[in-house]
Every structure is written in structure tokens, then in C-alpha cells.
């Protein structure tokens, strides 16, 4: 039973954050391409199984997660108060995700409103972090999203976010009609 695949499976299973294939490769002293292949086989195997869990590619690594179908059951089972994200918070998070690293002033400018409250909550919840200071007068903080952000929003990388220029597109069509 001690196949490479099963070793990888065990490592992913016990980890509380997504495990990167390189991490596993280094630990097992194996070629990363080979590890990647084994992980793909594992993902396929779990998909085919009549199971409530999957292996998903999150934040550049791999993680066991429950399927969407079980969300009501599990929410009821856990029965704890979740962290709440306000609409303003989500907006600020989206801007930071797209423009990072970004200063508060740049965020405020897009939203037309002061974002200090939302930024503080997002920092406290570890969805964003200060990554440096901008080399301009006043040296304002630069904010970026964290690994936890990718994990919470089920993203493999920031690049998986949709292209926001597409969201403005139908406006342009309307313009050309005039």
C-alpha cells in the first residue's frame, strides 16, 4: 500500500493549508513532474469515487475539501458564528486583489469613499497584509492579498480572478449605438 500516490495522499490529508507539489517532491526526494502526475491521478480517483470530499488545487497547492452538496449539513454540524464580510469589505478586497500592491489612497479613489474601516477588518481577518511602503511623500503602506485570501475564495492564484475589463464591456456596446 505504500505507493508514491498513497504517500502523497497522506501528506495532503494531514495538512491544514494547501501543500505544494514541490514541497512534497523535496520531502520525498522525487521528481516534481512525477509528483504532479500522481496528484492528478489522485484528483481523478477522488472525483470518481462516491465520496463527499475532493482534492482541489488551491493557492498553488493541494487540499482536501468537502463538496458543495454538503454545505448545509456541515454548517449545521459546526454550528459556530462565521466571520462576516461586508459588501464594502469585499469591494476593497477585490480592488487589492487586482491592483496589488496598492495604497489606501488608490483604493479610496476608486470607491469614492474612505476605506479605512474595511481595510482594518481585512487585516484583522488576515485576508490582506501590509507588504511595504510606497516611495512617495508620506510613504503610505502598500497592501496585498494573503494566501488565506486564495484559500477562502477557492483560488489557485490571483490570475484566476476574472478580467474586470469584461465587466465594463456591455457599457461600451451601448455607447457605440449612440
Amino acid at each position, binding site marked *: 500500500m505504500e505507493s508514491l500516490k498513497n504517500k502523497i495522499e497522506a501528506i495532503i490529508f494531514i495538512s491544514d493549508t494547501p501543500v505544494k507539489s514541490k514541497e512534497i517532491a523535496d520531502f520525498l526526494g522525487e521528481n516534481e513532474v512525477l509528483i504532479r502526475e500522481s496528484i492528478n491521478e489522485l484528483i481523478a480517483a477522488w472525483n470518481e469515487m462516491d465520496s463527499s470530499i475532493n482534492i482541489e488545487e488551491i493557492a498553488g497547492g493541494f487540499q482536501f475539501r468537502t463538496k458543495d452538496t454538503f454545505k448545509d449539513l456541515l454548517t449545521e454540524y459546526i454550528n459556530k458564528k462565521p466571520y462576516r464580510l461586508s459588501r464594502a469589505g469585499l469591494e476593497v478586497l477585490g*480592488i487589492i486583489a487586482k491592483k496589488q500592491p496598492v495604497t489606501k489612497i488608490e483604493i479610496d479613489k476608486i470607491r469614492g*469613499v474612505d476605506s479605512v474601516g474595511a481595510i482594518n477588518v481585512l487585516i484583522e481577518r488576515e485576508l490582506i497584509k501590509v507588504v511595504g511602503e510606497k516611495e512617495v511623500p508620506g510613504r503610505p503602506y502598500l497592501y496585498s492579498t494573503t494566501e488565506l485570501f486564495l484559500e477562502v475564495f477557492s483560488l489557485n492564484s490571483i490570475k484566476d480572478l476574472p478580467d474586470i475589463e469584461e465587466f465594463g464591456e456591455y457599457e461600451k456596446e451601448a455607447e457605440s449605438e449612440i
Partner: protein
Amino acid sequence: MSNINDINSKQVDIKLDIFEGPLDLLLNLIKENDLDIYELSLTKITEQYLEYVELLKEIDFDDIGEYLVVAAELARIKSRMLLPDNDAEDEIEEPEINLVEMLKEYKKYRALSENLQNRELLGRDTFKRPADLSLRSNTLWEVQKTDIWKLITSVKKVLQLENYKQVPDIEIESEPIDHAKRKKEIIQNFGIRKIYKFSEIFDLKFGRDNIIVTFLIILDMIKEGVVEINENKEEIEFEYKEG
């Protein structure tokens, strides 16, 4: 015992970052009126926008400045459109902000935040192990569903209704409303019943100040996640979530 002034100044202190700002309000009004983002559309919703600003003024809203900047710009656009073409260029100074461009840009990010909200959220739609069972754990998340502007619109309507009932020229020195006491009342009510209709919470017979204080308390409870709004009913309903 704290005196009345203390209580009043505390009310003013409530920082309501639950409001998403003037651009959000404008986009909502544009959508409600089935318009696209153009200067002409902005002139059509200027009056409505100013009505909301009046309400925000009334609740001693901290960030009113940003709403006023936009109000000034709306007024500028309107006055320029009223002038004949030749005069326009000479007499109206350059705008400080380009509202149409700002709205277009902002709209993209608002769409992105909706996209984020609809993603598979860890701790809401999917769960990982080890399941962190501690209170308010980092692996359980939810997103505010409520559109605050809908609630504000309803409150605005109530306050406008109430204007008709006011007797002109007679000023009654009304007793200031105790914020803490009113909050206790509301929570006690929710202890009896989990769901209240809008009209049950915002009762006209207690007067304008009471409505505004109640409104602030409810906003705070929505922000805390203690109260959720059901908007899909004919009348807005407030649902109490256990803490």
C-alpha cells in the same frame, strides 16, 4: 450616570462603514431608473441623490463630505447642460472629478466583488480539515447579503410620510431618545419574535428622532451580523440571528 449630551455624542460617533459610498449610491439610482452611465443620466437622478444625502445628514453620518463632493459635481454637470454650447466652455471651470469615468471604473470592481461573493467560499460552501471548531474561526466565512440602500429607501419613505404630520411653526422640545435604552428594547423584542416587519420596527407614532435612532441601531446590528434583512418579501423583514 452619564448625561444626555454624552449619549448624543455617542450616537454621532457611530462609524457606519456599512455604506458603500456615493458612487455606490449613484450606481444604484442609475440601475433603479434603468439608465446607463452618462452625464445625461446623472442629471436625471440628481434630485433623488440629494434626497438621500439629506437623510444621511440627518443621521449625523461621518463621511458625508464625500457625498457632498459628488453632489457638487452633479450640480455642475446639470448647470453646464442647461447652458448653450458656446457659453459652456468659457464659463464652467474644469471639473475636479470625472464622475462618469469614476462610475465606469467603480462598476467593474463592484462586479468583481459580486463575483467574489459567488465563488465557492471556504467555511460557507466547502470545508477543510482540521475543521477549526473555535468560535469565529478563521475557516468559517459568510458574506453580507443585504443591500443597505433598499433599507434606506424605505426609511426615507417613512420620514417623508412623517413630514405631512408635522404641525408647522410649533416647536416642541422633545426629549432626546436614549440610544442604549432603545437598543435594549429592540433586542428584547427580538427575544419574543425572530422576525419583524419593517413597519413594526419603524413605527411612526414615536416620531422622527426615534425612527432615526432605531435605523442607526438596526444598521449596527446588520453590520454585526445579528440582524439579517429579507428583502424579497413585499415588505422588508428583519430576522434576528442568534449571536
